[in-house]
């Protein structure tokens, strides 16, 4: 079923090669960001993908882009389709879909705070979501170094030791070697 669907859609949308992860889970890239809205609407209204499971982002620092994953679910067919679109890391502005799925509003607030991806027009997107009084880089960006930040912010208690769990347990369980 998913193969048919993707084939049908590829005729009109710029889809990449699909990855059939599991029998009920498919990933596919969308190369043209301006087609996102119409594709989502079509999937929701015609193809029965009525549920937005999640909207999340991956920071591909080396490639200089963000990947947004829209995961949709068709409950009748028990199929999940994950659409991946890419944003330029420097610009980082996505298209809001809160009018298609109201839940997206929350996801977009989170992305805005954690990755700094803006979604103009999404309600309350500029308000604080989880962090309070955050002035630094958005913490989920990979150029934000959380270890360094924590060392520069919170004081250590001396005497803390760190061991490699693997060698430590090995030594503990089999002292003879």
């Amino acid at each position, binding site marked *: 079923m998913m193969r048919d669907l993707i084939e049908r859609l590829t005729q009109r949308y710029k889809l990449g090669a699909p990855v059939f992860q599991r029998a009920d889970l498919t990933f596919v890239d969308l190369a043209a960001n301006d087609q996102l809205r119409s594709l989502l609407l079509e999937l929701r209204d015609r193809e029965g993908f009525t549920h937005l499971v999640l909207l999340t982002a991956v920071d591909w620092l080396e490639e200089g882009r963000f990947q947004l994953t829209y995961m949709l679910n068709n409950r009748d067919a028990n199929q999940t389709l994950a659409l991946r679109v890419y944003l330029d890391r420097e610009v980082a502005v996505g298209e809001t879909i809160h009018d298609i799925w109201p839940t997206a509003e929350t996801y977009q607030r989170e992305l805005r705070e954690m990755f700094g991806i803006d979604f103009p027009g999404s309600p309350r997107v500029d308000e604080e979501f989880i962090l*309070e009084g*955050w002035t630094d880089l958005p913490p989920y960006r990979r150029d*934000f170094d*959380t270890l360094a930040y*924590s060392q520069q*912010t*919170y004081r*250590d208690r001396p005497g*803390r030791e760190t061991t490699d769990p693997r060698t430590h347990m090995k030594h503990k369980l089999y002292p003879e070697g």
Partner: protein
Amino acid sequence: MKDMDKSFKKDTETEFPLREELRPHQVTAPDGQVIEVDPLQDYFCQEPPKVHRKSYVRIVEDFYNWARAHSLWILGFGTGCGAIEMRPLMTPRFDAYRYGIQWRATPRQANLMVISGYLSVKTLKRAIRAYEQMPSPKYVVGLGSCTINGGMYWDSYNTIKRLDDYLPVDLYIAGCMPRPEALLAGFMDLKKLIRKGQGEGANKYAENFDWYKENQKAVIKDWDMPDYNW
């Protein structure tokens, strides 16, 4: 700890703006009078806490300490994973009530604050507020390695590492997560401390008030409350 990143520098310049409703502004009364308000100055009591002496008579203080030790009222404030380990204490299996330990719903009626695990900066702010509202003498118990040295959140950008930088801790209970038995043992130790008259955290807090506030304000960037929450 070794891989301290030299290139990453934390942003220490940007100030977080005060929330809109807390900035000084003007209010028009129903009769047309215009009133200037500075919410942070006008709505809250600005007095710093003061050190409370012990009572003059030794035996009275001892008696009081005995009563305090046997009537620990815990503030029902849960942070981190440890909140889940406190609940079994109320159940038939552990039943902390028989040691005079009770949970109260409001900080005004509690004497003991159990910080039950990692504290994110956001929660720290609430914890400070709740702590300051408790009547003294008050005690703080830090639960789990997260409160001692950061535990497994030692490299997190958003959780504090040493609780005693921010609140006067009387006792730590180590473990990740300490079991309810460990908690009970910890409370028994706390009782001994109190009976010896060493549970003076509130006075310590008042004496080193500036130091505590400096530490707190260093991590809480949007400080939108008075310095001491009466």
